[in-house]
Structure formats: structure tokens, C-alpha cells
């Protein structure tokens, strides 16, 4: 499992720019960023190289940030790869809270999934047994 950075942002102009600038100024490098938005606020979810450092930076700059453990699964970059993975998870009877994909270099893609409750640890073992490669914090450093 890897740690994802989640930032609570109000829906107002310039906040996302301010957030990314704050991270850039402190040399935080992002691999992925996705936004879940409502009419009043959004959650910005980020995979980056040093989550704890990023949280310190953001809190100092007046943002509200937290970290969450998520699965990052490496998949072949071909049709059906995600469907195969999701079927395995579905058979475990585990709910997916949210997920997003980001392409890594070349042949492979990486999928980030947040599974509900305490079921992530169980899922990690099952996915490894099924032959999936799960990214570790070192992979995204």
C-alpha cells in the first residue's frame, strides 16, 4: 500500500493553483492528481514523493490535508486489464470507495484504489496471490 495525500479545498478561484504552487515551492513532486468535487468544495487526491513533508507544508500554508492508505496496482496497458482486477476484488466481497488510473511509463499502467474499511490489508494479500504487483512507498518516491 502507498499513502495518498488528500486536501480539502473550497470551490473558489485560484485555490488549486495555490495548492500546487505551495507543493512546488517545497520540492514535492506529484505522480498523480485527481479531484472529486461538489458544488461547495472538492477533495484533491494526490500521489507524491513525500506525503508527510507535503502535509507539513500544506498545514503551514493554511490548507487542511490528511493522508490515506490506498492500493496502487500495476496493470498491463491493454483492454480488459482493469476489468480483470476489479473482478478479483469483487469476488473478495470488498467495496471500492473510489479509484483512479494514471499511466506509468510504457507498457504498464497504475491503478489507485481505496477499498472500504479494514478490508484493504486482506485485499493486498489476495491480489499478490493473484499475481498483481502492488506499488510500495519506495516506488513513488
Amino acid at each position, binding site marked *: 500500500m502507498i499513502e*495518498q495525500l*488528500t486536501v*480539502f*479545498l*473550497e470551490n473558489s478561484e485560484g*485555490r488549486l493553483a495555490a495548492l500546487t504552487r505551495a507543493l512546488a515551492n517545497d520540492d514535492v513532486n506529484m505522480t498523480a492528481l485527481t479531484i*472529486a468535487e*461538489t458544488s*461547495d*468544495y472538492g*477533495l484533491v*487526491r494526490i500521489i507524491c514523493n513525500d506525503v508527510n513533508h507535503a502535509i507539513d507544508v500544506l*498545514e503551514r500554508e*493554511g*490548507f*487542511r490535508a*490528511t493522508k*490515506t492508505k490506498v492500493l496502487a496496482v500495476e496493470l498491463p496497458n491493454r483492454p480488459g486489464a482493469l476489468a480483470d482486477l476489479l473482478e478479483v476484488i469483487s469476488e473478495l466481497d470488498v467495496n471500492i*470507495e*473510489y479509484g483512479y488510473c494514471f499511466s506509468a511509463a510504457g507498457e504498464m499502467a497504475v491503478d489507485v484504489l*481505496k477499498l472500504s474499511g479494514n478490508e484493504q490489508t486482506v485485499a493486498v494479500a489476495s491480489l499478490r496471490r493473484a499475481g498483481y504487483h502492488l506499488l510500495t512507498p519506495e516506488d513513488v518516491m
Partner: protein
Amino acid sequence: MADHHDVLTMPHDQLEELQLAGIQKTLVDCYERVEFYHKLYDEAGFNPYSLTSLADLQHVPFTTKQDLRDNYPYGMFAVPKSDVREIHMSSGTTGIATVGAYTEHDLEIWGDCFARGIQFARGGVDDICHVCYGYGLFTGGLGAHYGGIAAGCMTIPMSAGNTERQIRVLREMGSTIICCTPSYAMHIADTAIAMGLDPTRDFKLRAGIHGAEAFSDNFRRELEHKLNYHVLDVYGLTETMGPGVAIECWEQDGLHLAEDHFYAEIIDPETGKVLPDGEWGELVLTTVDRQATPVVRYRTRDITRIIPGECACGRTHRRIDRLQGRTDDMLIIRGVNVFPSQIEDVMKTFPQVASWYQIELTRKAHLDVVTLKVEVNPDFDFDQIRAIEALQRDIAGRLKTALSVGIQVRLVEPKTIARSEGKAKRVVDLREGVH
């Protein structure tokens, strides 16, 4: 309804004699029957049998909302419970209500006082009185209802809400006088217009008796334009009776106090000293002939003044000016009294949010909308939108139970709530037409 012509135009010195006699009796009743007053006067060294002029009243200790709250539920009753026919309640800061009780005589006075408003609106037995204040513990609904009946009107107990049905009844029954909050009158007007109606033709309204919340002169003009009727402001509070303590006459030049039932003083809220007519200050009321829950020098916290001179209508009862706000932080939301401290008490039970909050009051379709902005705490795991929404719902639900008013809750980023000198600005009132 009894003809009020005499009492409303009697020379003011005669009215004062009547007030003095009433208050002398009230003081004795309070002292002999209500433990709170007995202790209060003994401790202050005030002899309740000694009042010889209305001016003497300025030496009598005040009664506050907190005193009423401390004596909840029956402590302020000056009659046996068997003499009480009805009670009303208003909310308090700590959730404990203040109680107003009414004997048959008190209900009669109440009906008569509100009926004066209908008389001021040149109304009577030929009128259809449409009451869409809320009915219940809130004094608005039943106060206007008793007034409508006392004035001889055909009275329709609509209560608040279900605006389309209000509009249907206004059209089909041909209501001529409407009693509700000014914002609800505007909401009805706008809804009717949005439905393609022309209220100036489709309604038969002649007058509106609107109170329980402040409204500006511009707001009044807009209402009168949209509904083609005459708007009269009404004032009252549960602690002294309910709506009808003071009502505007057709002149729209101040609200005539029902001086045969209430004695008014204006005081400096800081020093407690009585101010001369014309000066702005806090309104203090004493009931002249209330039986069940009389009050002596009750501090209303409402800011107004006595308008000097006589009214063009010829009535001798003195007028108070339209309210200019309050000396405490009480908010009036959809006619319901809300204290910020009540909101604070609820917020304290949610560790997920910080103590910084802000109440934003806006108007949507002329109805008050309250948005509570709260800052997210660092230890709240907000990673999922579901968690945020559930928290907002929980807070809103708890607030609704505590305040009886629907409040939208919005989580905001840290330090986005304006702080002045380290203290948050708790209330931002963006409502149009209130000021």
C-alpha cells in the same frame, strides 16, 4: 369586539391613572404570589406597596429573560394553575424555554390588542382574516387568530407553509387581511407572480399585519406594490403577551402601544437609567393587568424610542418607533429566536470541526436561509465525500433539534472565517430588507 374608541383616544393623563392603578395591583400580586419577585424586592429593599406615581417605577428592579428561564416552568405564575387556560413558550439560549401563561382574561386582552391592529387596518366583520403565522407554541399564529375573532373577522387558520395552498385560499376565499411575517408575505407574492398570477388583481387583500421580524421601509414599499395593500407593523413578545403589544395605525408613523395594558420605558442599556421620550434605547415593559404571568420592568433587549408628540390619527396611546436592533446577539430567523450560543453548544459536541464558525444569513425567495460555516479539524478523516456529507447532515440534524430552525452546514477550509483581533465574526447578515 368592544368599541375601543374611548380607551384609544382618552386623554393621556387618564390613561396614566389607569396604568398606575393597574401597576400598583400588579406589584402587590407579584410580591405576594411569585417567590421570585418577593425575594427580588426584599433584597433590593423595595416596598411594593409604596408606589405612588409611574415615575416611581424607575426605582423598581428589572426582570430579565434569564430570570424567567431560571423560574421555568411554573415559577413565574401569579395564579393557580387551575386558572390558566393556555401557555406559549419562546426558546432560550440553553434550550430552556421561557413560558407565558394566560388566564381567560389574559386571552381576552390578547385578542383585543391584536384586534386593534385590524381596527387600525380599518377592518371588521366584513373582513376575511388570513393567518399564516405558524400556529403552536410560537405566539404569532394564535395571537393573530384571537385578534381576528375578537375583531369579528371570518378568520382562516392557515398556519405557515404550503405556499401554493395559501395562494389558492387567498384567491378562492378572497382574504382581505393577511397576518404573517413580512418575509413570508413577500414569498407568497413572488410565488403567486411566478405562477402567472397578478396578486393586485387576483387577490382581494387590503391590509397586511406583519411582524415577528424586522423589515425596512423599502421592503414595505415593495410588498405594498406587489400585493396592492397597506402594510402595518406589529410588535410583541411571548414574555409580555405576544403580537399586539404595539401596532402601527394607517398613518404608518410608529406603533401605538396598547398603553392600557402595557407601560413602556426606554432605558440606557448600559446604565439602566430611564431616557426621555425621543431618545433611542432599550424598551422595558411592565404589564398593567396581566394575571397569569405578569412582568415588572421586563428588559426586552429591543432597541427603539418613544416617538414624541401625537399621532395624526388622533389616538392618544404613545408610539414606539420601528425596531432598530437588539442589545444582545439574538437573531430572528424565520420568526424564531436564535442565540449564537445555542449553535456553539451544538458545535462543541462535534470534535471533527473547529470552534471557528460563522453564521451567514441570506434570503432565498425572501425566506431566511441560514448557512453555518465550520472549519474542518486536522484530525477528522475527510478523505471521502461521504464522510463529509454525513458530518454535515449530523450537525444540521442536531441543530434542527436544538433550534427548531433548519440550518445548512458547510465545511470550509481552515482560517477562511474572518477573525477580527483574534475573535471570529460570528454572524454575517446578508439579508436584504431587514435593515
